[in-house]
């Protein structure tokens, strides 16, 4: 499967993604795995697979994500902000406000009409605005991650959570369950709490429509729905929302290889 001209790798704290694009900047190949503790070994292994698929060494390669500096093989290292912006702009073709919610961090990026980064905000100190928040709390409720969103959306009522911190939220949930509140309303309240954090970040960056959603948590239908409700804006989720960082990195690598990264 040659035809792959450039590679991007996103070494995140929860998942690691690698992507190959062709000369037109079209996505041709990708792998997504849970991030392993020995990141360098995992990267080595993934690059081996890439080399097999591409018929040659996986170059040029741009690395992004939390562990980007560990990728010695990268030609260049670029932040997730720039890469996500690049990937989403290419995937959707317009500017706006990108909300990326990962396992352990979330960010909001304001994109101009030509895909340029205008402003950004990162939440990487507090779990309450990340996928981790939902993971931890869903465990408490005995609902598996895959069905989290559906279950939340099925609720008629909604429990309001007052805790601003994940740790306190867990004890609040225990208390609500003890008082006989059902799982569905609590789950909906949790999703609402996460979305409220995201909305606060969106407001600091400034909302430029349309709203776009990426990251692992984008696959959760409740997040998109509640975000629409809170902002009154349509929320667009690109195809392969979890790959946007790696895809953007590959597009940067493509540029480096001297090819234009696709139609502007």
């Amino acid at each position, binding site marked *: 499967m040659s035809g792959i001209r450039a590679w991007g790798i996103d070494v995140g704290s929860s998942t690691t993604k690698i992507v190959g694009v062709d000369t037109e900047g079209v996505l041709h190949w990708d792998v997504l795995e849970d991030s392993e503790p020995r990141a360098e070994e995992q990267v080595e292994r993934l690059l081996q697979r890439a080399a097999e698929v591409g018929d040659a060494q996986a170059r040029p390669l741009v690395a992004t994500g939390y562990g980007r500096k560990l990728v010695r093989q990268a030609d260049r290292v670029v932040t*997730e902000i*720039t890469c996500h912006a690049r990937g989403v702009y290419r995937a959707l073709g317009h500017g706006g406000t990108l909300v990326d919610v990962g396992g352990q961090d979330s960010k909001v990026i304001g994109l101009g009409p030509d895909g340029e980064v205008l402003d950004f905000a990162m939440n990487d100190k507090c779990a309450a605005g990340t996928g981790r928040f939902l993971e931890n709390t869903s465990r408490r409720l005995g609902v598996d991650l895959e069905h989290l969103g559906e279950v939340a959306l099925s609720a008629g009522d909604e429990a309001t959570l007052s805790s601003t911190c994940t740790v306190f939220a867990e004890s609040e949930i225990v208390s609500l369950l003890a008082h006989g509140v059902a799982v569905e309303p609590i789950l909906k309240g949790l999703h609402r709490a996460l979305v409220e954090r995201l909305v606060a970040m969106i407001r600091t960056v400034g909302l430029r429509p349309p709203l776009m959603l990426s990251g692992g948590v984008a696959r959760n239908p409740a997040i998109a729905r509640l975000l629409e409700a809170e902002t009154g804006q349509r929320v667009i989720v690109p195809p392969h929302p979890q790959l946007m960082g790696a895809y953007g990195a590959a597009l940067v690598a493509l540029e480096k290889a001297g090819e234009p990264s696709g139609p502007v």
Partner: protein
Amino acid sequence: MILDGLPSIPRRLDVARAHHERGGLVAAVLPIHYPRALLRAFGILPIEVWGPPNIDATRAASHLQPYVCSIVRNTLAFLESGGLQVADLLIVPHACDSLQGLGSVLLDFVHPRQPVLPLYLPRTQGAEAAVFLAEELRALHRRLVEVARRAPLEADLLQSILDEEAADALLRRLFERRLTLPLTTFDFYRLVRAREFLPLSAFVELAQAMLVLPPAERRPHTPILLSGIVPEPMEILRAVDELGASVVADDLACCGRRLYPEGMSREPFARMAESLLGAPPDPTRGSPIQDRLDHLIGLAQTTGARGVVFHDVKFCEPELFDLPSLRSGLRDAGLPSIAVEVDLNDPPSHQARTRLEAFLEMIA
């Protein structure tokens, strides 16, 4: 670390000890503005305390709540653990409510061995401010006479002021010429910050040596303007260098905001007051926001800075109140900015670096 062609920079503690050996007194001076010339006229060596960063600040917890900034908390912890033992007196300028509280807590509760001398800087910009400050400096002078048990002649005080002004003029030249100097951002600041503790002649020697360094062939870099109180932890400057950027101008309380102009009066106290009040805009001296904005935009235009990094210490009211207006005004003038908040005891942070990196990518 010794750089080629430059005298080595000693540690603050060693400088203090050397000064004691020469028979002089050492004053530990807290942020921000104070009359260096006045202290030197008494043979007192001012050594500034900006934190210091990266210490165990738990000893401050018995006096100061957690919502007091880390500059102030670290200073108290440092004092309590003996870090300021070498000082013979403590000068506490009034720059904000937290320093006000620290001064008061030291005077009323902690009772350090050293005399504690507070100094109020006026927050108005009119003629009354200059009159008040001159009197406040005279009051400080009287306290210094008690502590040092001597009084300098007026002629010696005036000479001390002129010498200090000459040193400040050298400092200003260093700032203006920084891009031609063959120094990384980190080294530039490490050297100019020696102004905070070196004896005057040693600083003048250093500054002159820096000014005759062979000019460097400047590699392409992303020019930024750095604003805040103090560039600590200094890792931020290393990160700037490593990411291919350069601080072309600064609006830092400990650096760019203390480029004091010459005074005009021949009367020493009036002259010192004029000089202090003539410094660039500073919220801790009550400067209006528009003045700060005009100053920042002017600096960016003359130096070609493409963006502004606000590097603030968490809980810093003077900085945090102005921030939204400044960022919005800068945006209107075509200058993007980011704001990071740090604690002086933060270990080097991946997050902070990523933010800076992303910003530099954005403005490159």
